């Protein structure tokens, strides 16, 4: 196409047309800059929106089906309350689904229904419609949505009390003393859905602190008495623990750790600090690495310990024999690589007596031998994946399971705000709720223990949303008044592709209508939930606002092209005349300059996109750098998570590319029209 080839020639920078070249370059760079900015900004915000949306619906699902007032007032729901077959107890959706009987009412056994009793909703054959089962059938018939699953959920409320027990005295290995604290929180209890794919992202890994806590708690009886558990039980628990955990490194307590003398090698020299009480040597502290002079406290004399001769040589040359009674203390927070001695578990009377083979260096002197766990803390350990454990949340593939323990009760999954308040995996407590009895309201307690933490995302009640086994939520729900059941039971329809939410909703509503059960259900997509609606609308309107601003910025950037093209047209007026004389149409001339604008827009876009991709790839480094320069975090992790999304948003890319090319093409219209209207005779005569 000759217009394009001529346009490209015109855009090649030439010394002769320095002003045009400079303006073109600036125009392209400005466009590139704007494109870069928009792509990076939109990719990050788009990613954040996706992450936030995922977090928002982590506990629910893209589509949720909840029973309406009509359901709770239906014969189908109420009939359980008057039927002996159902123990005169209303059923949850889950129980309805599991129930073999659609209509449990037995005219010969059960009392007559009250006067104001709803009409039974029957199908063509006169059978009572099984609303819940029909609903699941409708869900199973949804097409075109891969990976769709449906699970019922229950939500209830209870009071969670956790007993936080922490070992207080870390100095004395023989005595256990404890600090105690109660953490009490009114909580929403949601039924734990083992198939929820969001759990994979939401659950927080077990930390070393958690492991230390689980180990410490394993020594205590299930009640709150803080008594040591009997030995057999302890060993059983230790086996369970060490079957799931491989400890690689222990850390000395911050105040130091008494080195068993049997670990001392045959020879070697160590720089040590000697602590004296009067003329009596009280203890000897061994730093992990030789201390520089500046770090040696002035009141603590430095000496050299010769292990072979068991003598201390002081700074002034005086030597002392090292008495056996003086403890050798290894500095605090020093890491010791270790390996568990499995047979030691069956000899332990106390968790502290579990022994490890340790191999470590102090000042390049090697130490090796058996050490008891004592007050050493776990700093590096591997928690076996896919091993079912009663200690904490485990998973096999994508199926998660909350543990239960015959002594400790039910494992619960807490939102991470509890961890911030000091709770750790292994902490015990109970969930209390109230049941009306004949004379009063009685408090009931269900023993629980912390089996893990999860990130609830940004839902408003996230900080109070505790996940527990469905048996527990059903039990507590059953004790509550029936009035508030409505919002607390429903079916989550999960799938990965959020864009399919509307289609799923439509298909469900259509199927419900066909089955005549539409009045019993409210189908909502994640954009319509009470707790997401405002936020998602806000995000969406912000995106629109920013798109508008981006469009304005692009227009401003592309307007540079107008001035550049006008100069170019003036510069090339003779050539325009020549081309016209050779038969080029005025449209061809306009196209040439239109192309010039478009090519510049495209060049700017491509450069900007490439730089944006590179920027997004190195986003973390860039943000760290800016954070360092300004002295505080650029993006607060509370709002933005630990890492910003850095995938290029193709939506943003398409928007910017289309907007830039279109705007630059439009920018070319004025100069192109001007060029096309030039009369060749006038141009050529004036030359």
């Amino acid at each position: 196409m000759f217009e394009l080839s001529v346009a490209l020639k015109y855009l090649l920078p030439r010394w002769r047309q320095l002003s045009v070249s400079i303006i073109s370059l600036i125009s392209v760079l400005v466009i590139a800059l704007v494109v870069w900015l928009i792509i990076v900004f939109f990719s990050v915000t788009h990613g954040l929106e996706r992450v936030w949306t995922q977090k928002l619906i982590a506990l629910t699902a893209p589509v949720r089906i909840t029973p309406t007032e009509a359901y709770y007032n239906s014969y189908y729901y109420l009939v359980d309350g008057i039927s002996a077959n159902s123990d005169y107890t209303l059923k949850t959706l889950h129980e309805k689904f599991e129930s073999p009987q659609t209509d449990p009412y037995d005219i010969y056994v059960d009392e007559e229904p009250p006067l104001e009793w709803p009409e039974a909703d029957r199908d063509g054959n006169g059978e009572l419609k099984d609303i819940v089962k029909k609903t699941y059938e409708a869900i199973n018939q949804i097409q075109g949505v891969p990976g769709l699953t449906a699970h019922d959920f229950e939500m209830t409320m209870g009071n969670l009390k956790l007993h936080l027990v922490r070992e207080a005295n870390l100095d004395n290995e023989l005595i256990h003393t404890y600090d105690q604290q109660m953490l009490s929180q009114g909580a929403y209890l949601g039924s734990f859905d083992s198939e929820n794919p969001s759990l994979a992202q939401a659950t927080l890994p077990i930390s070393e602190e958690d492991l230390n806590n689980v180990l410490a708690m394993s020594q205590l009886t299930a009640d709150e008495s803080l008594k040591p558990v009997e030995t057999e039980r302890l060993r059983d628990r230790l086996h369970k623990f060490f079957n799931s955990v491989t400890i690689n490194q222990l850390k000395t307590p911050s105040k130091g750790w008494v080195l068993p003398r049997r670990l001392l090698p045959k020879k070697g020299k160590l720089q040590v600090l000697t602590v004296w009480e009067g003329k009596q040597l009280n203890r000897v502290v061994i730093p992990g690495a030789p201390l520089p002079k500046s770090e040696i406290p002035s009141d603590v004399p430095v000496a050299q310990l010769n292990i072979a001769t068991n003598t201390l040589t002081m700074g002034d040359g005086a030597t002392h024999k090292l008495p056996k009674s003086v403890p050798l203390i290894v500095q605090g927070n020093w890491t010791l690589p270790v390996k568990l001695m499995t047979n030691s578990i069956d000899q332990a009377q106390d968790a502290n007596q579990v022994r490890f083979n340790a191999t470590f260096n102090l000042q390049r002197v090697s130490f090796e031998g058996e050490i008891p766990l004592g007050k050493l803390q776990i700093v590096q350990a591997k928690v076996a994946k896919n091993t079912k454990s009663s200690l904490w949340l485990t998973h096999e593939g994508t199926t998660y399971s909350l543990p239960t323990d015959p002594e400790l009760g039910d494992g619960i999954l807490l939102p991470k705000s509890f961890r911030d308040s000091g709770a750790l995996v292994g902490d015990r407590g109970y969930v209390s709720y109230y049941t009306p009895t004949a004379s009063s309201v009685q408090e009931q307690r269900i023993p629980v223990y912390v089996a893990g933490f999860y990130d609830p995302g940004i839902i408003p009640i996230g900080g109070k949303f505790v996940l527990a086994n469905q048996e527990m939520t059903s039990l507590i729900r059953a004790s509550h008044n029936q009035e508030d059941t409505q919002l607390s039971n429903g079916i989550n329809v999960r799938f990965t592709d959020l864009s399919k939410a509307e289609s799923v909703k439509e298909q469900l509503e259509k199927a419900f209508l066909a089955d005549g059960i539409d009045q019993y259900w409210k189908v909502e997509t994640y954009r319509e939930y009470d707790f997401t609606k405002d936020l998602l609308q806000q995000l969406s309107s912000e995106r629109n606002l920013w798109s508008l601003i981006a469009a304005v910025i692009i227009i401003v950037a592309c307007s540079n092209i107008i001035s550049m093209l006008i100069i170019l047209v003036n510069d090339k007026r003779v050539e325009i005349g020549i081309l016209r004389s050779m038969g080029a149409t005025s449209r061809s001339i306009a196209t040439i300059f239109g192309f010039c604008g478009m090519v510049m827009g495209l060049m700017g876009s491509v450069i900007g996109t490439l730089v944006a991709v590179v920027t997004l790839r190195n986003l973390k480094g860039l943000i760290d750098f800016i954070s360092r320069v300004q002295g505080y975090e650029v993006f607060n992790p509370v709002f933005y998570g630990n890492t910003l999304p850095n995938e290029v948003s193709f939506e943003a890319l398409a928007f910017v590319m289309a907007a830039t090319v279109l705007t630059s093409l439009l920018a070319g219209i004025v100069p192109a029209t001007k060029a096309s209207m030039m009369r060749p005779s006038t141009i050529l005569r004036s030359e």
Partner: protein
Amino acid sequence: MQDDPKPVILKATNIKKSFHIPLEVKILDGVDLAVCRGDTVAIMGRSGEGKSTLLQILGTLEKACNGKLEIANQEVRSFNKPKIRNKHLAFVFQSFHLLEDFTTLENILMPARIARKSTSKGSAAYNHGLELLDLVGLSDRAHFRTKQLSGGEKQRVAIARALCNDPDIILADEPSGNLDKKNADTIHTLLLDFARKNNKALIVVTHDPSLADLCDQQYRLEDGKLVAL
């Protein structure tokens, strides 16, 4: 001229042109001209008499105020001007008017590209371009930038370019006006030989009597009318 058996390729009837600057100045006042294939026509006249304007009107670059122009049996209208220019006409200007962003060969092939012909290496148009370069004796300058050429060479390139689409009429406006005698002679020979050999019409506007003498027909533009000499 009516008796001429050769077919008429350009026929201008009662061409009038006046400019308003701001008073009306009549430049052409009823020019009639018929040019046949193979004719070489020289138009002479004083400066400002309207020779170039007439040439531009004949070349469809300028619109006449009045009159009728037929080229290759088609009446010239605004919609078919570009096509007529591309297919039937070619210009040679006094100041060469080469496209400086392009090489010699690219300049020569430009009319073919405008006609949407393929000009890639090996194509018919490309080979024709090389032949034209050879014809004007500039084969070794094919990939030179035009600013690297001398004045005479530039005009030879301009002539080669004019011949690219095998036009029926070549319109030359003082083709040797900016050249020395030797180069001017070369250009004259090239133009006239080509026109005669290939049965093309050549219309030259010139001050140079030696060029006019070489042409078959000479006219003088006087008081807005063509007078045959």
